[in-house]
């Protein structure tokens, strides 16, 4: 059952990273995408926040679903 746990763990890690970035206000720095950074740090924080967000909404659910499928397969084998 280690692999499903690893997948869930990775999904959770992405969610925590996104939550931390969100609480730190990194969303405001996404204005850099349209060429209007809040500060010089926006050029980094903005794209990183976008990447974290896309990872949370695209990759994390896939990992969680895959982990669930894997768990069900393992349980069925037992």
């Amino acid at each position, binding site marked *: 059952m280690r*692999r499903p746990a690893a997948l869930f763990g990775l999904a959770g890690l992405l969610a925590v990273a996104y939550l931390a970035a969100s609480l730190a206000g990194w*969303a*405001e720095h*996404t*204005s850099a*995408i*349209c*060429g*209007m950074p809040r500060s010089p740090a926006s050029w980094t924080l*903005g794209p990183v926040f*976008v990447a974290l*967000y*896309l990872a949370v*909404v*695209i990759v994390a*659910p*896939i*990992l*969680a*679903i*895959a*982990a669930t*499928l*894997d768990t069900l*397969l393992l349980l069925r084998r037992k």
Partner: protein
Amino acid sequence: MKRARLLLSLLLAAVVWLPTLHRFYALDEPERELIAARLAARQVAAPARGAAEMRAVNPEWDFMRRTYVVLALANRALAHPGERVRSLAAIDAIVDQTLASADEHGDVHFLLPYAKRGPFMDPAARSLFIDGEIVAMVAARDLVEPRDATRQDALARAARIERAMRASPSLSGESYPDECWTFCNTTALAGLTMLDRVAGTDHGALARDWVAHAKAHLLDPKTKLLVSSYTWDGRVLDGPEGSSLWMSAHNLLVIDEDFARDQYARARRELGASFLGFGWAREWPAGSPAHPDVDSGPIVPVLGASAGSSGLALLGASAFGDDAWLGTLLASLELAGFRDADGAYRASNDVGDAVLLYALSFGPLWQRVKEPASGPAALLQIGGAR
């Protein structure tokens, strides 16, 4: 075996999740109206919010934001009588401040620095970009309720536009020295068309002549799409670009509807895209050289999605009733725009929000332009002159 099972699980998970994702970002009509109402309220409350920041990047954005907000509020004033008074007040404040700035600082106040690189080819000309959008703003306001205070300024600019276009070998006005844009020329012609409805003038012949010239000389030979920019004497500078085409096609709806629909259909085919419920627009047709600039905005690799083109594609899709694609474009905006409580998108800026507001409000103004002409007297009876 274990690796194969892992890959299979991931693949199955992706097949389940990816086609579902867009449903979390789809916006139905009530949600779209809520966003539009919030954006409108935000613009009415603080019309010049963020102007200084935008001007630091591109003074044109400050100017264009005003145009799109005025057009949007004019639409909302027609569609929502309860908003009419405050919308007209906000429009008047924007127009008056714009005219004052143009008078005090000159057209260059709203232009990129290269506007000063040299004189216009037509020594008597002023920037068509500025004149055309001001005429459009004033005429849009008058189509809701005529206002005498700005009519003469609009008529003077209209006369200047017609003179400049007629004097040009390309039948087009310069927005910058020796640089004409289809975006600006079609906006000017749409503004003149609106002005004709309220002032009793007639610029129909100019519009027809420009369309005829455009069909003969301003279409890309491969895609038959309008080019974006050209010199005063008609040499093409930039080929078809989404950041010009969607607005140009929208303008042409009140000038030559068949041509407009042809241009939108071609642009949709060459530049429009969607996948798994998310839509976007490219800036350039396939095979065309890509040179990102301030108009295209950032380009997403692989997809070729252009921020500038995708933003204006919202207006194109709305104006042409392409609700399926509009839905996918809005889903993409919801996914990657990070909307705040005011309805504005953090990854966008005020001009982007203004374009969205106009796209979501589009309809009543163009409908009024296309209604059978009943003369200025009839329009005066609608709301009375102020």
